[in-house]
């Protein structure tokens, strides 16, 4: 049958179990369809993709200004500055081969506009152990409007391949 031509009168509407299953499957697809707009308006976790064009050099400069203005300390081991952005304000994070700077110090329950971009290749912002993941592209200022709901020390892992030292591209976010 499957490898031979069907008889001339092969057209018929689905019936029986087949029609039942197509109906069920269609309803399920529509439910899944509805879930995304529903969550967009009522859920708290969305990826809206807000972003602005930015030259990599210009972004590096912004990160440096942001760091200079809000620096509260330095990681003794790595020398990476620890920066505390104003609650409700803008925060900046730069990905480059193979580090994330600066270390951000945030407050639980406060909302920040976190600007992330890359100075060189594509990187992956992967917040652990939260397991929240976003793509980072050079030339794109990716803005996440972020509200930490838990406290502790969180690690940023790079999860987009960016060369030989990719696995060691680790950053930090501290939430108090």
């Amino acid at each position: 049958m499957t490898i031979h031509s069907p008889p001339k009168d092969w057209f018929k509407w689905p019936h029986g179990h087949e029609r039942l299953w197509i109906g069920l499957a269609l309803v399920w697809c529509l439910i899944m369809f509805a879930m995304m707009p529903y969550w967009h308006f009522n859920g708290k976790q969305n990826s809206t993709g807000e972003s602005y064009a930015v030259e990599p050099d210009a972004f590096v400069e912004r990160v440096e200004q942001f760091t200079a203005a809000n620096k509260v300390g330095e990681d003794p081991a790595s020398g990476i500055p620890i920066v505390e952005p104003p609650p409700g304000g803008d925060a900046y994070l730069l990905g480059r081969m193979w580090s994330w700077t600066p270390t951000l110090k945030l407050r639980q329950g406060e909302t920040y506009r976190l600007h992330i971009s890359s100075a060189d290749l594509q990187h992956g912002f992967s917040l652990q152990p939260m397991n929240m993941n976003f793509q980072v592209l050079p030339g794109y200022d990716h803005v996440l409007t972020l509200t930490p709901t838990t406290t502790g020390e969180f690690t940023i892992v790079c999860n987009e391949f960016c060369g030989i030292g990719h696995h060691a591209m680790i950053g930090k976010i501290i939430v108090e």
Partner: protein
Amino acid sequence: MASITAMSGPRTRKCDTTGLPVCLDAEFFVKMNAVSAVVFLLLGGIAALTLALTRWPAVHLLDSTWFYRMLTFHGVNMLIFWILFMEMAILYFAGTTLLKTKLFSPKLAWAGFGLMISGAVMTDYIILMGQADVMLTSYLPLVAHPLFYLGIILFAVGALVNIFNFFATVYVAWKNKTYGETMPLVAFGAVTAAIIAVVALLHGAVALVPTLTFAMGWTAEPDPMWYRLIWWGLGHQSQQVNVVAMVSVWYLMSHLTSGGVVLNEFVSRGAFVLYILFINLASAHHLLVDPGVGATWKIWNTSYAMYLAVLASLIHGFTVPAGLEAGMRLKGYTKGLFGWLWNAPWKNPGFSGFFLSLVIFGFIGGITGVTLGTQQINITAHNTLRIPGHFHATVVGGTSLAFMGLTYYVVPLLFRREYSFKWLARLQPYVFAVGIVLMSLGMSFAGSAGVARRTWDIDAAGIYGATSHLMLGVLGIGGTLAFIGLLIYVLLTVHAVLFGQKNHGRAMDDWGTPKDIAPAEGDTEARELLEHGKAPGTMVLVLVLLACFVVYYFANWKALADLWHVR
């Protein structure tokens, strides 16, 4: 009577098993493409073993450089070379034998094959020379040696030449009505796959040609976001070609191994058409956490496109086993809900390859794919090991396993050689399937614990605990087992092609086809079920699938709700 003249003469033979006419020119190119496919499968498989043994933390085989090199090599050889060469073989078979016609042009087939082989060799060489450690996706601004892109472009052009040859063959058959009024379903599926392949390969050209000229230093760098968008028009859709080819193989193997029928030609064909219409937009689900594309774009393209294509897969997920159930019931295996299933030829590697492929694709690959491809849920999965956990269940447990099952019929029917060590062949699909399922689950659970894909080492981060390490161990063991299954398949097949016993002039050895035990006048109960569109056993199976789907889907929303708030 064009059909009869078209199919007589010295360049054809009649298949001793199926009675179908075989065009000898087409047969030659089926062989060439299938053999190439198996060679690249072996290359990609060896790379896979080294990768699995590196991500297994207790072994950690390769150094960092060679891990990324092998990862690039593995992706390119498996997802492009193995799969596409096999698909070319399927097109040449479906376009001629199933349509009872001759190959349109052996010259074009040579040209296509030559381009594909030289492209593949060029790309593999440049990767192994360490000039293209960029992964399959080669995301800009990461740049490879120009020959990397040129090789892939030549390969794609070769594939397009073959596809043109296929369409010309189909056109001649259609004009001469060689196959009667309506094209057989499996050939219809092959046409669907070919149409999607053209769209996919054109996207590949649009993404890779400017990247090649950039790598040569002739033009400016293409925008990295633009590249991602267009590249996934190739990357995603070529996976859809695999799905369509795999579903066509399911229909084919269901019939060849067990006498499966088509419940409703309109439904099965309509589901194929849904793929053509809606799959393109589904490439959006690779960009769900990207900057540069907005929420509306993401939601619309994810749902509108995916869910009608998902519907198509859900339909095939019913019609394939239901056709098998009906065929088996017509043969007299009517006991209870599942008598047809227990009596299916489980020792026939053509059957087990096909049916395990169906189950793994549906229950693991399909459910995870749709869930992870949901716009917001993707936040918890993007670039983690959950992604390869998903697609190894679709492309490897699904497509590759179905192609392996197919091979156990291709070699006796077209190479006209029998397999030796038949007991080992009967075991092979199970070894491979268990390995892939273990590996896929290990990846998925490690990914849920936050372990990234495409990462040589997880210990530098210092945050991954015992669960992650254990799951990566499962990945390693599963990958090793799958490699053993792959190796058995390659060795048995190469042995059969070179040294297998010839079966000219007789039907191929029976792998085990269920005997017709229905009374001489046929089983009335089975016929009545079929007439009323009923497949009770299959209905139960798909309801179980739907229940698993719903639970997994909403469990993922639940997990998402615990995360930090983000817009």
